[in-house]
């Protein structure tokens, strides 16, 4: 069963295609990442899925509702943490949660109970009656995420939730995202932090110039790009990079600090060739490491094209 079904979703701004006919489906309970450089169309996509922007064309089913035809019904069971959103700084943490609860039509008694649980969960209970303007950035962001959870959402949209935060807040928010996801909440996370997507997501879609250029699990995406596997080697004396191409076995050699990184699809063949080469020039290999392709390599490769 799918929580989100997107078909040919497009958004134009004065002739500029911010999102260009994207289609994807997200299973219930999945933790799905939207990855891409700035301006790739991630936030516009989220804004269309959360009913803030009207798509130029295409459809999006969120839960069982078409977000364009039944936005209120769809929003009722969504939790949303918009990018760069703020809580009301002149209200207390508790009043912010109370306001959100009221906007979701939750009964006051229930809001009070949920607010207490969330404030404790996000480490804000002691400061619940303080105005948000006295909070640190990390505390504000924790509150903003808590506000997105006041309605026990079945689908949680998080747009760059950990951007620019301290390590403690990042860990807390990531742990709680995982926790909510493990309890069945479908999570859609946009980020340009590749490691975050790698750690958290079941599947990621990589966006560039308004299009989805790849969509799969992080591991499958990495294995698709075996050419990005590499060997990092350091010699005890300087060597010429072009001598390490070994015909066409190595596709590229890059200098990385005091080491050389050799990119190859046939890494198994490279190691004996390196040993032979070092003997031939009377040099010793100080260190050698094989490096599997990571999501960052995949991301760079896809978004460069």
């Amino acid at each position, binding site marked *: 069963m799918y929580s989100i079904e997107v078909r040919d979703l497009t958004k134009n701004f004065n002739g500029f295609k911010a999102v260009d006919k994207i289609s994807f489906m997200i299973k219930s309970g999945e933790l799905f990442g939207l990855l891409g450089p700035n301006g790739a169309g991630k936030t516009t996509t989220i804004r269309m899925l959360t009913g803030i922007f009207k798509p130029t064309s295409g459809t999006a089913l969120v839960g069982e509702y078409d977000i364009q035809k039944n936005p209120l019904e769809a929003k009722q069971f969504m939790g949303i943490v918009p990018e760069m*959103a703020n*809580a*009301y700084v002149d209200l207390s943490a508790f009043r912010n949660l109370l306001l959100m609860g009221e*906007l979701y039509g939750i009964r006051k008694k229930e809001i009070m109970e949920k607010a207490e649980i969330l404030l404790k969960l996000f480490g804000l209970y002691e400061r619940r009656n303080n105005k948000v303007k006295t909070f640190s950035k990390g505390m504000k962001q924790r509150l903003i995420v808590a506000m997105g959870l006041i309605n026990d959402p079945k689908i949680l949209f998080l747009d760059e939730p950990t951007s620019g935060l301290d390590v403690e807040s990042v860990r807390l928010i990531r742990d709680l995202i995982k926790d909510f996801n493990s309890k069945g909440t479908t999570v859609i996370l946009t980020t340009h932090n590749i490691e975050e997507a790698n750690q958290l997501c079941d599947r990621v879609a990589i966006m560039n110039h308004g299009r989805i250029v790849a969509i799969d699990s992080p591991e499958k995406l990495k294995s698709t790009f075996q050419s990005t596997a590499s060997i990092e080697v350091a010699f005890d004396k300087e060597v010429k990079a072009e001598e390490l191409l070994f015909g066409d076995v190595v596709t590229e050699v890059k200098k990385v600090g005091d080491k050389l990184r050799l990119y190859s699809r046939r890494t198994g063949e490279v190691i004996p060739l390196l040993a032979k080469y070092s003997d031939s020039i009377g040099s010793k290999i100080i260190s050698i490491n094989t490096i599997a392709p990571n999501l960052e390599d995949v991301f760079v490769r896809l978004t460069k094209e």
Partner: protein
Amino acid sequence: MNFIGQLRKSLAVTKKDLFIFYLKGPVVISGILMPSFLFVAFAVGRNLSFNFLIPGLMSMALFVTASSIGPVVAPWETRMRTFERLVSAPVTLWAIILGDIFASLMFGLFITFFIFIISIVLLGVEIISLSLVAGTIIAAFCFSSLGLLISAPPTDNPSNIMMLQSMIKFPLIFISGVFVPIDNMGNWKFISYISPLTYYTDLARNSISGTSNFSPIIDLLALIGFSILFFTAAIVWHKKSLTKRF
């Protein structure tokens, strides 16, 4: 769409506005002082009776206060990045606008009530009539709606809206019979008909001194008409400008 449920959400928006924007000492004090200063500036040195001046003061106080804070709410929320959070909740745009109007309306009524009391207790003016009470509530809604309409341009700079607000509000005060009876405007009298303030001032003057240009029914109908027009226009324009706020 559950209409009552949306109205409840409007009240949540109202509560939020009151806490953030209105229930602050300087705001309340300036709400009283601003119309009072304007009133004194125009009344001093002119040989006019309280029965003529008090309706002008009341209408100006209601007009200035009911449309004072409402216009800056949307640009302020845009700047503080709270607006996206608000519109991403399951609440309609009309309910958000209505909530902002309610807060503005309550502030306007509070200040006007204060002037009512002073006029009755200190100046001995008899001003209570059913049509004036009804008209004051409708006019507060009308002026607040005008304020929300003014706030529709998608700026995140409250001072831009304040400037627009001054450009619209001050001329309206001068053409609405607040300080000068509209009969004295000669051939330009017709301009006063496009101002909702004209009808509330006329209604107040009718209730206090018994003189007026229109019947109370006409005044009330005009205020209702302007309210519908401003409220509808505010919703349509805010809807258009919404995506440009982000």
